[in-house]
Each structure stands twice: as structure tokens, then as C-alpha cells.
């Protein structure tokens, strides 16, 4: 799984290339093509399921598409739902590039959200950029610290990051709940903090839709990540460790340091995801608020093949499936479980590129060795 991260920054495929940029574009398109084919296949299989279960497929997909893209409101919903997934997708994808599997995005997200909310309670009277910037900084820092723990454990003891980061998720969820209910609980039945100050609330970019500037931040971060992996020595070191740790060591890179940093950087992304949910959606920290953003982030990173822009597209798709699923449920009376089935199918098909490639090849006639009789 750790080798899954593919990229278009690095050329793939063994062939000489006459013009690099066109080759790169072609490679990217092939990757995109496979992802698109996987999505298509998932929709076909889901359609079959719906037919078997007696639902109206045409109506279902029609309302799904309308819900996701058919109106300004629908599209805003898609973007809104895509925003946290974009960041958690990066949380996983960045670690992927260094050969690490960050399953801990969920826990990092909780700490980021809590830190963000606590700082956002105190920024009364500050100018808007600072009132938003400081809490997000706190979110990133909290995510970094929590994310770095599995990295440190791996570097020091060799403990596998998958195990430790999963375990740390539970710790993070229970610890943030406990801290909230014990020290910062607002009056009422729910374990949640007070409302953050107005200055810290993320501005809406399309009024009335709930869509905030978070998505713009996400796009900017995608550009930053692409630059980081293509144009910096540290990004080079990350990928060297991910692709061939022995050669990286030969090149003077300390894999242990990179392991800590890569998990930490992933943590920043997850922490910021939590912060953005707090500043845009909840406007406070609520215990157990996440519907699994961190876990869906794994699927987003896999679907995006670890490529920054691939992650953006994948997050959009999951946002669309989410908002489309809502309207599918509403208008075609299809249970939301089926949306999850579609998502699951996409992940399975994308995560198994070899199987998919075999299916594509399978349709071509095979050349058999000819016998000379």
C-alpha cells in the first residue's frame, strides 16, 4: 500500500519521450482515464444493484446529478462537502509520498478542530485575517504534533505507523471529548464548546449556501503541495525515502527524520481540515463531530493517486457523491446506504488498478504463439 502513491510530477512508464510535457500530460490522462473508468464501472454496478432492489435507476442518477451539480446550491453543497476531504486527502497523500500510510487523519483532525475552536474563542476584536489565521495555525500545529507521534514511534522503535495511527485515533476522539466536557463545555446536553467569536467565522463566498473560503484555501494548498513535491529539496527527500529509502540514505537523507516530518506534515493537513470545519460549519467544537472525514481522506488520496490535483478531483467526486446522495435519497427514495455502496465500489475499483487494467486488456484479442505444423 505504501508504494501506491503515484504522481505525474515524476514521469511514469518505461519509454523514451520526445517532448516531455506532452508525455507527462498523456501519462496524467491515462491515470485520469483509469480513475474515470473506475467511477463509471462503480456507477454501472450500483445501477444493477438498484435494478435488483427495484429502484428507478434513471430517476436516481438524475436526481443525484442534479443534487451535485444541477444548481448553484447543489454545486455549493458539493464544494462544501469536498473541502474537509480535500485536506484529509492531503493528510494521507503527503505521507504516501514518503512511503507511509497515515490512517491517523481522523485523530489529527479532532485535535486540530479542538485547538482551533479554543483559540477562536479568544480572538475577539482582532482583524479578520488574524482572527481566522491564528486558530488555523493552532489547528495545524495540533495536527502536526499528533501526526508526528506515529512518525516518532516508527523512527525510534520501528512500530508500524498503520497500527499506531489507528490507535491514536481512538485516543484523540475520547481525549477531545473528555477535555471538552470537563473543561470547556457550554451549557446544555451536548458536549460542545461555546460559539467562537464572530470575527473568526470563515466568510461565505456564495452567501446563503454555507460555502466558505475554505475551498479556496484548499485549492491554494493543492498548488503548494504540488510545488513542494516538484520544486523543493525537502519534497525530493520525502519522495526519495518513499521510493527507495536505501538510496535516500545513500544521498544523505535521514529516513527517520523524513518519517517524522511526513507524518507531521500529514497531520497539519488533517488538523487544518478540522479547523476549517469548525470555522466554516460548526462554529464551535462539538465532540464526535466528524462523519469520518479522516477515513474518507484515505479513499480520496487513493483515488487521486497521491497526485495533488488528483486529490482535488477525488475530493470533488466524494463531495458530489455526498450531496448527490442526499438528493437521491430525497427524490428517488433510495437509502443513503446505497451512496456508501457507490463510494465503496469506486474505492475498490480504483485501489485495484491491476485488476482494472487486466479487464481493459482482456477485451483485446490475445496473440497466441503460432505453431508451425
Amino acid at each position: 500500500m505504501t508504494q501506491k502513491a503515484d504522481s505525474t510530477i515524476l514521469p511514469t512508464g518505461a519509454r523514451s519521450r520526445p517532448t516531455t510535457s506532452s508525455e507527462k500530460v498523456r501519462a496524467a490522462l491515462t491515470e485520469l482515464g483509469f480513475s474515470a473508468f473506475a467511477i463509471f464501472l462503480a456507477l454501472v454496478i450500483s445501477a444493477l444493484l438498484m435494478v435488483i432492489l427495484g429502484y428507478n435507476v434513471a430517476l436516481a442518477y438524475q436526481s443525484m446529478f442534479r443534487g451535485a451539480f444541477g444548481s448553484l446550491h447543489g454545486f455549493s453543497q458539493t464544494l462544501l462537502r469536498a473541502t474537509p476531504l480535500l485536506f484529509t486527502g492531503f493528510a494521507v497523500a503527503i505521507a504516501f509520498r514518503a512511503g507511509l500510510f497515515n490512517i491517523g487523519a481522523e485523530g489529527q483532525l479532532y485535535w486540530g478542530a479542538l485547538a482551533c475552536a479554543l483559540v477562536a474563542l479568544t480572538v475577539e476584536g482582532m482583524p479578520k485575517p488574524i482572527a481566522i489565521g491564528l486558530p488555523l495555525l493552532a489547528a495545524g500545529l495540533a495536527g502536526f504534533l499528533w501526526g508526528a507521534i506515529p512518525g516518532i514511534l516508527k523512527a525510534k522503535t520501528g512500530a508500524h505507523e498503520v497500527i499506531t495511527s489507528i490507535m491514536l485515533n481512538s485516543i484523540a476522539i475520547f481525549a477531545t471529548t473528555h477535555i471538552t466536557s470537563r473543561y470547556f463545555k457550554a451549557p446544555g446536553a451536548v458536549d460542545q464548546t461555546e460559539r467562537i467569536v464572530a470575527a473568526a467565522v470563515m466568510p461565505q463566498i456564495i452567501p446563503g449556501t454555507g460555502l466558505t473560503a475554505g475551498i479556496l484555501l484548499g485549492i491554494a494548498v493543492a498548488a503548494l503541495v504540488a510545488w513542494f513535491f516538484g520544486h523543493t529539496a525537502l519534497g525530493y527527500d520525502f519522495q526519495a525515502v518513499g521510493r527507495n529509502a536505501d538510496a535516500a540514505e545513500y544521498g544523505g537523507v535521514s529516513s527517520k527524520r523524513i518519517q517524522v516530518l511526513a507524518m507531521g506534515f500529514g497531520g497539519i493537513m488533517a488538523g487544518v481540515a478540522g479547523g476549517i470545519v469548525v470555522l466554516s460549519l460548526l462554529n464551535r467544537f462539538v465532540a464526535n463531530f466528524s462523519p469520518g472525514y479522516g477515513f474518507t481522506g484515505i479513499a480520496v488520496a487513493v483515488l487521486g493517486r497521491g497526485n495533488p490535483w488528483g486529490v482535488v478531483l477525488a475530493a470533488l467526486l466524494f463531495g458530489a457523491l455526498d450531496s448527490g446522495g442526499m438528493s437521491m435519497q430525497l427524490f428517488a427514495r433510495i437509502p443513503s446506504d446505497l451512496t456508501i455502496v457507490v463510494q465503496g465500489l469506486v474505492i475498490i475499483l480504483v485501489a485495484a488498478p491491476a485488476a482494472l487494467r487486466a479487464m481493459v486488456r482482456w477485451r483485446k484479442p490475445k496473440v497466441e504463439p503460432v505453431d508451425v505444423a
Partner: protein
Amino acid sequence: MRAVELLDITKRFGTLTANKAVNLAVESGEVHCLLGENGAGKTTLMKILFGLYQADSGSIRVNERPVTIRRPDDAIGLGIGMVHQHFMLVPRLTVTENVIAGSEVSRHGFLDMNTAVEDIAKLAERYRLRVAPRARVEDISVGQQQRVEILKALYRKADFLILDEPTAVLTPQETDDLFEIIRRLKNDGKTVVFITHKLRETMAISDRVTVLRDGAVVDTLNTAETSPAELARRMVGRDVLLRVERPPSEVGAPLLEVRDLSVASRYGTAVESISFSVRAGEILGIAGVEGNGQLELEEAIVGLRRLSSGTMTVRAKELGTGPDARREVGMAHIPSDRLRRGVVPDFSVAWNLILGSQWRSPFSRRGAFSRKQINEYAERVVAQYGIRCGSIDAPVRSLSGGNQQKLVVARELSRKPDVVIACQPTRGVDVGAIEYIHNQLLAMRASGKAILLISAELDEVRALSDRILVMYEGKIVAERSCDAAESELGLLMAGHQAEAG
């Protein structure tokens, strides 16, 4: 009679054509060498014959009858056996158990081990394949393991044996033994295909030789009527100097000094209190059969492995820890395991050329890459060292082994080092590139650099080194001058100190 005929075999892997309409006829009872550079398609062709690959087109005839070979089972059924470059043995099992695995003899449904042992002892005796049938494979030498592989094929009644680069892992003496075994097989009427890229072996053992280049057959020749120079020319496609010129050079002060270096390994001591110094303008060769502590010595010197004791100095200055500290003082390192240490195969040519310098100016400023500087540098090095790649953005995995090695050599030597640690610098590299790399190392020597050459290729050590140290079981067992006899060095490498003395 023709034992095997391959007709118009073509095999593609993606965009790469490994075999282009290859025709090969092997006469019954001959030793036939398949000679070619790495990546010429020798192994692919034989794997098609053995049923491990399917040809895209073409046909196969065995004993002058058309056949279809879809699996190794089919090939074995036709009396074809193959000894792979990497042995396929179970270390924990005995020789006999390994040989019979898959074709066990049974009596009343029970394994009849005694009969099996007897059969194998008889077979071994007949072909002088000296090996104890009841020994565990993990306890016997690499040369003996190879005999087990040959026994496996013979036990399955193979008349046609394919040996894939069988001498790569052997000492000179073991190679002589292997040649003796091959002669016995031939006298007994067996047919042998011997895959190699070594001219000397081709001349020594084969009746006929087929030269492959870029996946196509160049020619099939009678060995008696050809010469190493002619074979090299056909293999590479141009004239090749088989023996590099090593003019006298001016030897200066010691640049690299190693004192009482010891390195621990998981199993004990890998390197035991080794001392030597390499002077400016000198190539010091370390000969030895692989696995005698060379890798540990190499890694300790270049900072990739911790020393248990000892000191190392460059220009009389103590070295810090890690590979970076070495680069600072002008040490370059051509690693013995290219794919593991030397390159990141998924990275582009340009990115691999800056491995180790990725934080240095002019390639990066405060950690941000200058794409222009990197690309200009890469273009220049690629042109200067003649690295054949589609472009500097092509992934290194798409380059041939020889060009990957050229890239590593180019990267390390263009750092303008004072001390070069060159380890197995021509492993898996074709004749043309070997000549090139050897000349590069000699050029470094001529310009007053100190070069430490660690190589299991005795020919290479003898051709390049001014002095030769022989390493055996982690120790330096002898120092000889460059004109030491091959047989003497061979014995020393095998640990025969007394006989050699």
C-alpha cells in the same frame, strides 16, 4: 540433429521489444553460448523456451518436432532444464529434498528417501557434481548450491540444460569445476546452452556461440573460428578495447587512510581490524568472493554503517558520521548495489543526477529547486558521459543497466572528488560500458585522485589496480602487486592461505 530450434521469436514487454524475430538453432550434444550485453534479450529468450514467458509470435521445435510450451512443466516434459541466475532452493531442506521436490519417489504412498538419496548420489558421481545428498542447502557453498540446481534438472531427465549466467557467483576455481562438469555433461550427450556476457568463458567452454544485441541475433559462429575481439565487436556493435591501458602514474601522499577498522554484523564480525591507505594517483583493489565482508567494509567507509572500532581519515582528517560528511571532504561512492543504493528508479534522470546534492547550490537555494540549474547540469552530464536516455525527464528505470551505471558513475565523478570508493563498478554492465567506466577510473587516477576498487571480478581488479588486497572472511589475508598470478589470487580468495603461500 537439432535439439532445439527457435523460429522468428518476438517478445514485447509494453513498448520494449526484448526479442526481435530471433532464430536460434542448437545442435544436439553441443555447448552453445548465448552471448550478449545485459538487456540484449538472452534470458528472455531462454525463459520463453522454458515456458516462463510466452512469445508474442514465432514457434519452437524440439528434436525437430513443433511443440507448444506454455509452462515450465511442458519444457521439463520435453527434457529441457534451466538453472536460473538466482537459485530456487529451499535453504532449510537437504540437498536431496530440494532435488526431488515436485517429483518425489514414493513406495506405498510414503516418501522413499533412501532410494532418492541413492539415485542422487549416483547422478552426482556420474557428472562429478560433488555434493553431499543429506547436507542442508543453507550449509553448503554457493558453488555447491549451483550443483544442486543442475542435479534438479538432471533428476528430471533433462537432456537440454540452460545455464543462466552460472559463473556470476563463482570463484575462479569454482568456475573451472563448473566447466569440467559441463564437459562431462557434453560427453554424456547432453546439450548445454550457456548464457553469459563474458568473452573469456565463451571462448573457453562453447562449441558455437550466438551473439545477441538489442534483442536480435547478430550472428552464430563456431567458437574455434572466432576471437574475443570479434565477439566483442558483434556484441557491442563497434570496436572495443578489451584490455584498458594502465600507464604508470605518479603516486602521492595517502588521501584515504583506514586503521583497524572493524564492523559488526548481525551474525558476528563482518570486518575484522582492516588497515590500509590509498594514495593519490593510485588504485587500490580489494579482491574477494562476494560475502566476505566487502559490503560491510564499503558501507562503513562511506558512512552508511556504524564502525565497531577503528578510525578513518581523508587527508589526515577524521571523518564525521554519515554520507554527507564524506561528500563534504570530497569522497565519491559508486555503490555495489546500484538498484538498492545508487538510484531511485522512479525518479527522472535529472533528479537522480542530483542525488546527494539536492540541498546544495546551485541546485537548490534555501531548499527551493532551481529547475533551470538542475536541467542544465543534467543535460551537460548526460552529453558528457554519453548516457543513453530518452530525455533527462525519463525515469531511470527505463534506462538499460549499463546506462544506469553510467549515470551513477557520472554523478559521482562529476562531483570532482579526491577519493573514489568504486564498488563492483561494472556489475551487470555490458562490454562497451565496462571499457568506458574503466577508462573513467583510470582518468581519475591519472589526475592524482585516490581510488579504492572493491570488486568480485578478479579480471577487473587485476586490470585496474596498482596494488591488490585479498579479503577473506572479513580480513585482509594478503597484499599482492598488480602482476600477481590469477591462480594465486583465486586460491587466496577461496581462503587457501597455506597453499598459496
